């Protein structure tokens, strides 16, 4: 990154149920406290000292992730709900809500043992 080019990130929690596949423990309905971290990358506005408005960042995540999916059954919204698929789906739906090119990566932490990042980036 050039100097003064920043990544900024915000994490929210989505408590939701899902099931994945046809066999094994993941195929039984169960739930997670998904910690979703949304990472933007861009230039800082010298006047405000911000890459992106904090309250707008909050609002976007609240409206498009928390309000829609917190307390839900994710299988009602997405065909596949593995961590990989959710990271990709959340990236795709959030991309439209930020200025073009600002959304850098979405990281979905399913449990303390596993997390998924989309897209995969060098030096992330």
């Amino acid at each position: 990154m050039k100097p003064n080019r920043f990544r900024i990130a915000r994490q929210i929690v989505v408590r939701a149920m899902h099931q994945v596949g046809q066999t094994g423990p993941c195929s039984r309905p169960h739930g997670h406290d998904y910690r979703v971290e949304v990472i933007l990358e861009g230039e800082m506005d010298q006047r405000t000292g911000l890459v992106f408005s904090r309250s707008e960042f909050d609002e976007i995540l609240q409206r498009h992730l928390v309000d829609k999916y917190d307390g839900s059954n994710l299988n009602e919204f997405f065909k596949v709900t593995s961590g990989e698929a959710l990271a990709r789906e959340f990236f795709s739906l959030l991309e439209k809500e930020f200025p073009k090119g600002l959304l850098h990566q979405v990281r979905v932490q399913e449990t303390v043992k596993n997390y998924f990042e989309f897209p995969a980036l060098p030096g992330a």
Partner: protein
Amino acid sequence: MTVATRRRSFSSAHFYHQKSLSIEENQRIFGRCDTPHGHGHDYTLEVSVAGSPKGETEMVIDLSLLDRILFEVTDPLDHRHLNFDIPAFRDQVPTTENVALYLRSEVEKKIADRGYTDLRIEKIRLFETPEIWVELR
């Protein structure tokens, strides 16, 4: 090349207000971060240093030295009000971005002062809260 990261926490107060903007614009841009007295955070600074492992210890940098450097750059901010007590933030908004920029510059000076020419800062990550961070490379 190997990267070594050390973290240190500090607690500071701040508010966001840009003097060159109107009251309404400040409210619109900064919302509840724009108050006369401000609010506080327990910041955590992570500094990642890249270099070649050296000598029999194969360390990139002596971690107690890196810890000392982190102490020297964060202690002046610890239990202080960034807007009122720190000259660097008299005329610029102490957003996490600007605090990260300031801390990177201070860490670079400390490393240079000690003569470590073969080290570079890979990245600085500053957590404003456990859920909000800013990174500068």
